[in-house]
């Protein structure tokens, strides 16, 4: 599988979750695991460009596919991706544990819909939980991200 533009060997354990493979075998710990069963969205990655929950996939399912994790958005100290920049500017995070998942969901959302309405934003990221912000600043972050992406 290709993760952030780098090819990686196939996982040796066929039962390995994609989330665990990314975190423990490849060592990219920006993909977080909050619930292990597809509710919190902390483990969201892009799978061939579309957001998926990596805790609900087996690593072997990613064979032959492109996976982008949070680390792949602005690699090696490159300037922040517009979505990352927007979360920073608008205080769209506190503890930040949910942030990589939100960022990846928003990247997917804006790709599909570059100019979402407030309702479309809410629906688009309703699969991600945040326990700190009450979501208000995340709404502001998505609007700002859409602006920065134009």
């Amino acid at each position, binding site marked *: 599988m290709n993760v952030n533009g780098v090819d990686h060997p196939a996982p040796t354990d066929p039962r390995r979750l994609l989330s665990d493979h990314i975190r423990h075998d490849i060592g990219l710990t920006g993909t977080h*695991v909050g619930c292990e069963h597809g509710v919190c969205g902390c483990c969201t990655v892009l799978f061939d460009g579309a957001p998926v929950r990596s805790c609900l996939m087996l690593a072997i399912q990613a064979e032959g596919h492109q996976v982008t994790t949070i680390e792949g958005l602005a690699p090696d100290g490159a300037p922040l991706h517009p979505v990352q920049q927007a979360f920073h500017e608008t205080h769209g995070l506190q503890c930040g544990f949910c942030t990589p998942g939100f960022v990846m969901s928003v990247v997917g959302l804006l790709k599909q819909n570059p100019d979402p309405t407030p309702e479309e934003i809410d629906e688009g990221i309703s699969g991600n939980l945040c326990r700190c912000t009450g979501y208000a600043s995340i709404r502001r972050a998505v609007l700002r991200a859409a602006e920065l992406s134009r």
Partner: protein
Amino acid sequence: MKPRLAEETTSGGRVGDRVRRPDAVQKVRGDFPYSSDLQVDGMLWGATVRSPHPYARIESIDTKAAKAAPGVKAVLTFEDVAGENAYGLEIADQPVLASDVVRYWGEAVALVAAEHPEQARRAADKVKVEYAVLKPVTDPEQALLPKAPKLHPGGNVTRHIKIRHGDQNATAEVVVTGDYEIGMQDQAPLGPESGLAIPDGEGGVDLYIATQWLHIDQKQLAHVLGLEPHEVRLTMAGIGGAFGAREDLSMQAHACMLALKTGRPVKISYSRPESFVGHVHRHPGKLHYEHGATKDGKLVYVKARIVLDGGAYASSSTAVIANASCFAVGPYQCPNATIDGIVAYTNNPPCGAMRGFGSVQNCYAHEAQMDKLAAALTMDPVALRRHNSLETGSALITGQVIDGPVPVAELLRLVHERPLPAPAAKNADLTAMPGGVSNTTHGESVKRGIGYAAGFKNIGYSEGFNDFSTARVRLSVVDGKPRVEVHTAGAEVGQGLVTIQAQIAGTELGVRDVMVLTADTEVGSAGSSSASRQTYITGGAVKAACEAVRERVVALAQSELKSGEGLRLEDENIVGADGNVLVALATLLGEEVIDELRVFRPRKTSPLDPDTGQANAHMQFAFAAHRAVVDVDTELGLVKVVELATAQDVGKAINPQAVEGQLEGGAAQGLGLAVMEEIQVQDGVIKNPSFTDYLLPTILDMPPVRMDILELGDPNSPYGLKGVGEPPTISSGPAILAAIRAATGRPVTRVPVRPHDLVL
């Protein structure tokens, strides 16, 4: 050997600026190492064997099969606890590993360390524990009966607070009574309990941990590990939320024991189901209230009996019940009060700290009572509240006279006068409807309700507790420019403490480059990131240390420049009395390093009188009010919170952006308890230990929060600030309940509100 930790970020910004949090850069990049991300070479993984029974005697523990399992390096039981097998925040009543009795479902009994986490979990399953199952005590009222089995040697009353204020036989023209019930809420921080213990090879251990209070962990760990405090060193790792859940030890002692036994680094990271038994929860409670008032709506008396279920171990129950009792009447003047607050041991999951800390449970009751009283008096509920609001100089039911701004009536006015949201539009987007995209209504049978609530609580520790924080501030020249390093043990839990420390140092010393060092136990205690206290107490310590540094800079300038009075430090220069720049700070300092350590203590408090609960027990108070607008589908019992409005006095907003985040985020947790969040415990067993079944608010559940932030300035605190974090979680939920009652006409006395409460 050290794991990679978060960068020690530098930032500028002054007190009052909207400062972007410096740690956000690493956080948005996915590069911020949380405790669950820590790793070092040669690390083992720990797993915990837990009780499947809420109450049982342990007959035997057989670890043979587990020890023989692949990859296993250690299997430990209570016999391996080197120190005293008892810990706790206020009462050391909880074993590190159960020895003779288990008192709750999920209590830790044994530990395994293995090369791979899967091997550790599998070996844990092989530990054979024989139990003699006992009948659990799961109702706190039953636990208080004389015939109940004693769950602890001292009986089942963890603490009973008696408040006897004014005339105990007062009578009133109008009397309303009510019974209220609060469900068990989970803090649900998204980051699991986790940490990494590394043995130092000399009998001591270094622990990298996500915690709210490094030094209380250190103290408890030294005690149970049989080590001196300096042999147990703690360093903050990235923390995925806290909200009270990280006040108590979870895996700390377990990881240290395994590391000391194996001589290798050991990591433990809980799964989500394990997290539900791995930390304490918000106390569920039953509250009986009686309010008496004059015909013109002045409170005459309040009588209340508040019973909280503390679960199997004390944790911070004794302080939670004190809050529930001291603030039982709400932010209102009440000349006479008879309050009995009791927290009981049961075989339910242990309860302790959660945002709001005892002031949430009672707020549901006193605010429902105020609405009931308003109805009985045919008065407007906001007018009744404003008529009785606490003011500067008012006495609480504990006899304490409040000084400083007490803007309760003003906060209520602000939320009341805010324009209301538009009525639900016909053909509105489904997400705006109760039931949302499940498409259960297009507006039929939907009724709108509006409700109000006000609440308050103490900031910082109370009852004579020795509250303090420590800060070390070091000024030097790095690459030709002045640099300030701030070192405290204050836990950044997401609230923004790192930013605030940098802002305070930047303000006091006028230096742009301020670096906040990693929090650890190498510096003195900062106290806990709880009770909304860190900005005040650790902020106060940083300010004091900076002032000491500044004095030394000025003294150095006076001696170097042979100059008299009037020198000051301004914008990285020494400035004379006439405002002229005399020398650059970097030039003045040269190789000199100015390093000062200060301990900051807020005002002293006193213990509550054991018979009457009278005392100046609290250091500062914070107030907030909320208005909620809800739509209820009265056929299906589904609720949509349309808007929340809040007003809060924060004294001084050190970082307004962070203050807004606290008000919005705190309101979301209040909303959660009001309409969806409950740990369902049946016969002592948690039935919903997952995020599929324990519901948390999503963005679709969370309405906009309209805010009025007042900065009235507390004359006693640094910069006039007040603690901010908890008030948003106190009155938000009760306002939603009031709005639901207004929409449905039903009494609705229990939270979280379930559909059948509104329909059947």
